[in-house]
Structures are given as C-alpha cells and as structure tokens.
C-alpha cells in the first residue's frame, strides 16, 4: 500500500449515544495505521472540518464513510443524504445506524410524548412558559432554525442506500479492525452485507447447553447463575440464541445474559420475532394459563427484551399513534 495515494475517510455521528465514536478509538494504537492509510476528511468529534467543506467535495470523492446513529432529525437526514452522495462506500456503523438501537425504542412512543416528558414532566424540569423547541423561532434579530424532530426514528438504510453494516452496540474493536482491513485489502463481501459472523452468540459461548426447557424466567438481579450451564436454561433471558456472533460472547461469559446488540443472524429480518418464536418453544408447559403466567411474571417488558436494539428495523417499526398512552 506504500506509495499509493491515501484513501479518504469520513465518520459521522447521528442519533446515537456516542459510544461508537469511542469504539473507533478502542482499536488502540491501530488508529495510527488508520491514520497512515486514510486522510480523515470529516469527523466532527475529532477533526475540524465543517459541513460546508463536505458540501464542496466532489460526489463520490470520500472512499469510506462510517456513519453511526439513526435518523431522528431533519439535520441527520440531510447529513445522511449528503454523505451518501459524497461517499463511495457508506457503512452503517453500530447498532443505531444498523437497526435503530436504543433511540429506536422510542418508536414505541411519539414525538408528542417525548416532548411532554423531556420538556415538562421530568421532576427536574421547570418550564412554566411551556417552551418547546420549534423548527423556526422569530426573534428581533431574525429567524432561528432548529432541526425538525421526527415522530419516528429511521435506520440509516430506511433513509439512504447502505453498502455495509457493522453491527454491535458498539461494534467490537476487533470486528472494526476486520472491517477496516477488508476495506483496505478490497476484500469486502457483496454490497448490502453485514460484515461479521454467520452464526449466533451461542457458538462463541463456552457455557454447557442441554435441551432447553424453561419453567420460570428470572430478572438478572433475582438469581446468581451457575458458572457452567447455559444462562437461558437457568431462566435468564439470554438472547444469544438469536443474536449474531462477533462479540465473543462477552456478556454470557461473565454471567450476564446476551441482550442482543449484534442484531439478528444472517438472513433473519426480525430479531425479536425470532427470539420470541424460539422462546415460545422452550417454555416447559402445555397449560395455557401457566404459560401466560411464566411470560407475564418473567418478561414484564417484551418490547424492551426482544426489540431492545431492533425495533426500528423490525416488521413492527413503531407503535401506532392510537395505542400510545397519554
């Protein structure tokens, strides 16, 4: 690669927590290799380049854009479209861009409810004038603009075409490095692919498994699981069975059930539905009432348990306005 002109790399952060930005740094000293291979042309968190600089670039002039975060505001949508136009390869980086992640869970409520909570209801809020952010506000000096806050969070590929996906909340450092290596060595899978494993977390999990039969589900604080047996068999809602491998089964290895951040396995569209179908089959009872009780007592928040990362990308996408409590 020596002597070849450096590639151009952009990174962007939309509706996400910022963890993905940190995750890029978790590749440690290899970040220097990245710097040697790429000119970082845009990375608001670390590099002083502005949006108008990007706007001036020729279309397709950025080689790779790692885009993290979902699309919740008009500004994020604008940036997604802009970076799509300017980049040869657009990577949905991390769970938020990939499938909506925690911000996408807010699709189980509405903009109206979110604003009510955030600007009026929280105990620490004092907002006697009932001020809420407006897209445009007239002030003596002129009109002020804020991005429009959408009712529904969309994933990156529900907004623009995405070339690759790097799953994880956040993606594991080694997987990020695998992806960078694949890009540099031009060893990428067909466009549209998820860069990662084609099996699930259980494969990487050292816990011993038997045939699954669950009589009762526990919340994580209710039991101390034994160290050897599969957590799901012990009644902890481990999503490892339905979640793409790649993390090295970090959580289950330390006794904490997989919460599913790597999303569904290859070829599966609806992570939560898969997880539910599998669990439905492992509940050890034939009595409808008992089954109801096992589910009700053990899984009080099904959406949060099964769609924690994938609600926005799932078949469900969002809750109907009419069903949202006021």
């Amino acid at each position, binding site marked *: 690669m020596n002597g070849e002109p450096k590639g151009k790399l952009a990174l962007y952060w939309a509706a996400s927590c910022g963890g993905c930005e940190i995750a890029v740094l978790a590749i440690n000293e290899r970040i220097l290799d990245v710097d040697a291979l790429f000119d970082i042309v845009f990375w608001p968190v670390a590099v002083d380049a502005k949006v108008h600089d990007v706007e001036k670039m020729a279309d397709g002039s950025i080689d790779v854009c790692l885009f993290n975060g979902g699309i919740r505001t008009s500004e994020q949508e604008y940036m997604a479209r802009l970076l799509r136009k300017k980049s040869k390869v657009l990577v949905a980086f991390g769970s938020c861009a990939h499938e909506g992640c925690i911000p996408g869970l807010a699709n189980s409520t509405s903009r109206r409810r979110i604003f009510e909570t955030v600007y009026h209801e929280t105990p620490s809020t004092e907002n006697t004038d009932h001020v809420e952010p407006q897209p445009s506000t007239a002030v003596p000096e002129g009109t002020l603009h804020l991005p429009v806050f959408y009712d529904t969070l969309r994933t990156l590929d529900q907004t623009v075409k995405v070339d690759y996906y790097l799953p994880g909340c956040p993606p594991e450092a080694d997987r990020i490095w695998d992806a960078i290596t694949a890009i540099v060595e031009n060893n990428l899978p067909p466009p549209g692919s998820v860069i990662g494993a*084609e*099996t*699930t*977390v*259980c*494969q990487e999990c050292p816990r011993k*498994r*038997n*045939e*699954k*039969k669950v009589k009762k589900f526990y919340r994580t604080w209710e039991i101390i699981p034994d160290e050897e047996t*599969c957590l799901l068999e012990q009644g902890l809602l481990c999503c*490892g*069975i*339905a979640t793409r*491998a790649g993390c090295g089964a970090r959580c289950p290895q330390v006794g904490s059930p997989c919460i599913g951040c790597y999303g*569904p*396995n*290859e*070829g*599966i569209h609806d992570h939560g539905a*898969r*997880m539910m*179908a*599998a669990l*439905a*089959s*492992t509940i050890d009872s034939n009595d409808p009432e008992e089954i109801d009780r096992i589910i009700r007592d053990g899984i009080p928040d099904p959406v949060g348990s099964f769609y924690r990362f994938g609600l926005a990308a799932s078949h469900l996408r969002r809750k109907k306005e009419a069903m949202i409590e006021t």
Partner: protein
Amino acid sequence: MITSDETLRIGVYVCHCGSNIAGTVDVEALTKFAEGLPHVALARHYKYMCSDPGQELVKRDIVEFGLNRIVVAACSPNLHEATFRRAAEDAGLNRFLVQIANIREQVAWVTEDRQEALEKAESHLGAAVRRVARHVPLQRQFVRIVPRAMVVGGGIAGIQAALTLAEAGREVILVEREPSIGGHMAMFDKTFPTLDCAACILTPKMTAVKLHPNIKLLTYSTVESVEGSVGNFRIKVKRKPRYIDESLCVGCMQCIDGCAFTRAKFPNAFDQGLGLRKPVWIPFPQAVPPVPVVDPEVCLQIARGKCKQGCVEACGERNAFRFDQQERIEEYEVGAVVVATGFHAFDPSVISYYGYGKYPNVYTSLEVERLLNAGGPTSGKLVLRDGSTPKRVGIIHCVGSRDANYHAYCSRVCCMYALKLAHLVREKTEAEVYNCYIDIRAAGKGFEEFYNRVQNEGVQFVRGKVADITPAAGQGTSAEGGLVMKVDDTLLGSIREINVDMVILAVALEPQADANQVRRTFGISCSAEGFFLEKHPKLAPVNTANDGVLVAGACQGAKDIPDTVAQADAAAAKALALIDAGQIELEPNTAWIEEDICSGCKTCINLCPYQAIRADEERKIAVVDPALCKGCGTCVAACPSGAARQHLFGDEQISEELEGLMNYV
C-alpha cells in the same frame, strides 16, 4: 440453484373442473390475468386438467415452449399435486418446479359472487406464480422399509390381521394387553346371526397365532412409545411380569391346583367378576398362550414374601416360576402398525333408573354372555344371583347408545346381540323374554331373517324406551327380588309395567378408557365420540393421519365380527402393500440444518414431534435425519439463528407467496 429471472418461463394452466370451477370463476379472465404476470410464458385454460389430455397439454408445452415452471390453478394439492408433478417429470422437468393454486376448495366452492371469486382466484394464482419462481429443483429421497409389522390388540381384529400378514410371509409382532388374546369374542358362547359357536371359530385362529412361526406374540404387554415414522417405526413395548417364564411353562395348569389358596376367591375380570380365580390364574381354559399369570397384589409370596409355594412345587422340574421377574421394555423395529385395540362395554351404573349395581338381578349383556358360555363361571347355566333359573327376562336395547346423555351414536351390534341373547335365554331356560327396543336395526347380511326367526320363537317385542326399573312391590332389593320394567309401549300407546326376574342391559360399545393415550402414542386422531379416526371414511377407511399406522376393528367404531374381520384383512393388506414396497419416498419438504449457521444452541432438539433432530456434540450443531423428518416446520420456526431450513418452505418462497397473495387482493 435459482434460475435467474430472465430465464424463467412459467406455464399457467387454469382448470374448469367441469363446472366446479368454471361455474363460479371466469376462467377466461383468469387466464388473461395470468398472461400478464411476470415470467409467465404461456397461460391456458382447459376443461379437466387432471385428465390425460390435460396432462398431455402440460407435457407438450414444457417440451415445445421450454417451460421451466408450472402452475396449475385447480383443486386442492392433496388431490392432484402428485399428478402434475409426475406429468412435469415425464416431460423432463424437475417435479418440484410445479405449484398448485387451489381455486376450487378455496375459491369456487366457498364464494358466491363471480367478481369476488375472480379476484380471489387471481390472488391465489398470483401467489403461486411468484412462489414457483423461487422453487429450486429437488431430489426425490427414498428410505428402506422394515419388512415387519406390529399388530396392537389381540381381539378378533388383531388376530385376523396378524394371521393374514404372517401367512403372506411377513414377520408380525402381536401385542396384547391382557394375559390372553381373544378379546371380547372369546367371552361369547354363540355369535349372531348364524349362531355358530364363538369358541369353535375363534380357538383355531388363536392356536394358529400361537403356532405360526412368523408371529411373535407378546401378551400382558402394552406399547410404551413409538418413534420414527412410516417404514421405520421404533416401538418400545412394556412387558408386565407374569412371574412365570413363558418359554418353560408347558400349560399343564398344575400350579393353579397347587396354589396355597385351596379355593378361588378373587373375581375373574374376564368373567366380568361373576367367576372367581386364585392368585395364579388363567382367564379362560382356551387362553393363548396357555400360560398362567400370577397376580402380585394377592400372591402371598410376592405381596408378603411368605408362602409355602405350592405352585412352585406343582410346577416341579419344569421350574417355570420366576418371582423376581421385573417389568421390562423391549424395542422392535417395524414398517407398519395395525392398531386393533377394540372397544369397552359401557358401564350402565351411571343410568340410575336402570338400577344396575343396585338391583342384583340387573345384568349387563357381557355378564350374561359369560353366564351363557359353557366355559364361563356357571358352565353355561343361566341363573340368577341366588342360583335359581329366571322365568321372565327383560332385555333393554340401546343402553348408553342413541342417547344424547351418553353416546349419541348407534352401537350397531346391540340389537342383534340382544336378539341373540333372547334366543339363547329361551333356548336354555324357556323363560318369557321381553325385548324393549327403540327401533330394531337389522341391516346386515342375514340379520332381518334372524330377527324374524327370533320373533317366531315367541320372544315378545315391546317398542318403547324403558323409563324405570323398580323392585316388584314388597320385595326390596334382595337377590330374589322380582323387578318391574316400566315402559312406554309406543305401539300400544300406553305405559306398561312388565314383571320380570332378570333384566339384561344391551350396553353400548364405547372407546377404550385409554383410547386417548393410545391415540397420542401412535400419532393418530379420534372422532368426536373418541373412536380412532380413519383418514377418509370412504376412500381410506383403514388408514390414519399417521402414515403407516392402520386401524381395524371396534377401536375405529362399533361394529360386528364380520365387519371387524373384513376391516382387519383390509388393514393387513394395506400394511402388506406398504412393507412390501421395499422403500418409501420421503416427503420432499424436509428440514435441514445449515451447518455454518447453527450455533448448537439446542433450542430445536426436543421440539421435533418425530424425534428427527439430534445434537451432534462433537461438531456442536443440530442434525436432522431426513428419513424421520416429516416436514412439519416446527424446528424451522423455532430456530433462533435461522439455521434450520426447509425444502419448499424457504423464507423467500413463503414471502413471495404472501406478497403475491397480498398484491392482488
């Protein structure tokens, strides 16, 4: 291999099914619609697609127009999917590139409005076209069939089926729950309508079973579990301990004489409790095998560990006693099973106004069969509880049958056996006999003639339902007590009170008490009244929902001996045809595990109703045995990682079909 879209050439055939479809669905418009669908190279409609010329049409077009997918919009795939698959294959196309759109049962027959019918048919057809585009060629798979059959239940049905199979040269395992085969027929003295002696026709068959080299007889045994499927069942049989080694016993019955109990004092169930037996006993003299059983509940040696063991002494150097025998499980591999577990006689004590169990001289028909039987508890003498001979006998038909409170169905044999009993009672006692009936059902061969004969013999027929049985005035409920039958005689139009000293209840035939459990073990269904359900009442009367499991005799519905025997032979013939085929084609829609994707989570393992999946511990993946998989799709739906897949039911095929359905509604 998915044919790339450009090369897809789909042929669509819309069947009129005479006027069955064309009468409701505008087949011409539907054909026009098909022509407009993506990748459809040609669409035709024809009067009867399943006819030879209809099939020829498909074959010719495949060759002439290079069609590589076929959709037939016709009747249910249950009827003619195989027909059109074969036609496609004859023309050189892989048979699994054919899809049926069911526009008869699902559209024409259930839709009145022509416009609606057309729209529905369009959506079904559109779905089939989109689905078939995603079909891939599949190989037909075959498995070897175990050339052996099992018959469960050793009544006349089981005996007949076993003998027919054995005579055809096939190995048969006959499993009977009781200590002896014979079933209900062994209890009777004579059989209607010919009045031949039951033992004379049954005993030779029972002996033939015992002697036949191809029959392995397992009495005092039940089926514990059934694994596998048609052609390859693995069946576990539970064998209760007899405490006597069958291979050493010579059937001399000297142990019974030698038993520490000098007198029989325990009720013999075979005699309906009317006769008594010892702890070591045999249900009836002609029992097969002629090997006694020891009742562990009352045998002093087994129950209390203390007895001078006169039986063992009597057995002497034959040395057949084994007090330490344990229940054991034996496993058998068979290709087909005939279930012939028979019926249970209705317990009339639940009908309080007949006083069964309250008035000693109210009997069930089965009890009277035993009393009349020369080998029974009274050596064939019909007597009341006090030993006296009855002088006036009432026989009540339809007890528990044709009665919404008990069984709504007609038990079919009660009228005839009630006539038989009337005849036998008169023959043996010259008593006055009153048969109280609702209608006489005498529809079988020789039945009406038999009815006439019994009428001419002087039996009194009273048309009416007996409303009540009470003790004759002042006689209490004592054994000697006479009884009064109160009956609404619908021919006379008045309520009659008939004095009798014996009442015989012609009880219904009902499913065995454990029928539901047996049904589950064998994976078959029951009809509403609880008898085992045949696959089709007219076209597959001995087959069941579980391929390779056949039914025969009274377990499938109340019937007489001639019908039972005919059905048993039919079941044997079906079993024979199956196990003689040598191999059997597997369902194409079996599941398989995409090995790279499977994480070995074991979610699927114990879900498979056919035990077709096992965990390969070494490779840490699940493996499906295609010979056992029935393509139910349970594992496919449950697999959280999407590793379990199914031929003909891939996600893509299903989604395309759904999209197709939705597009045109």
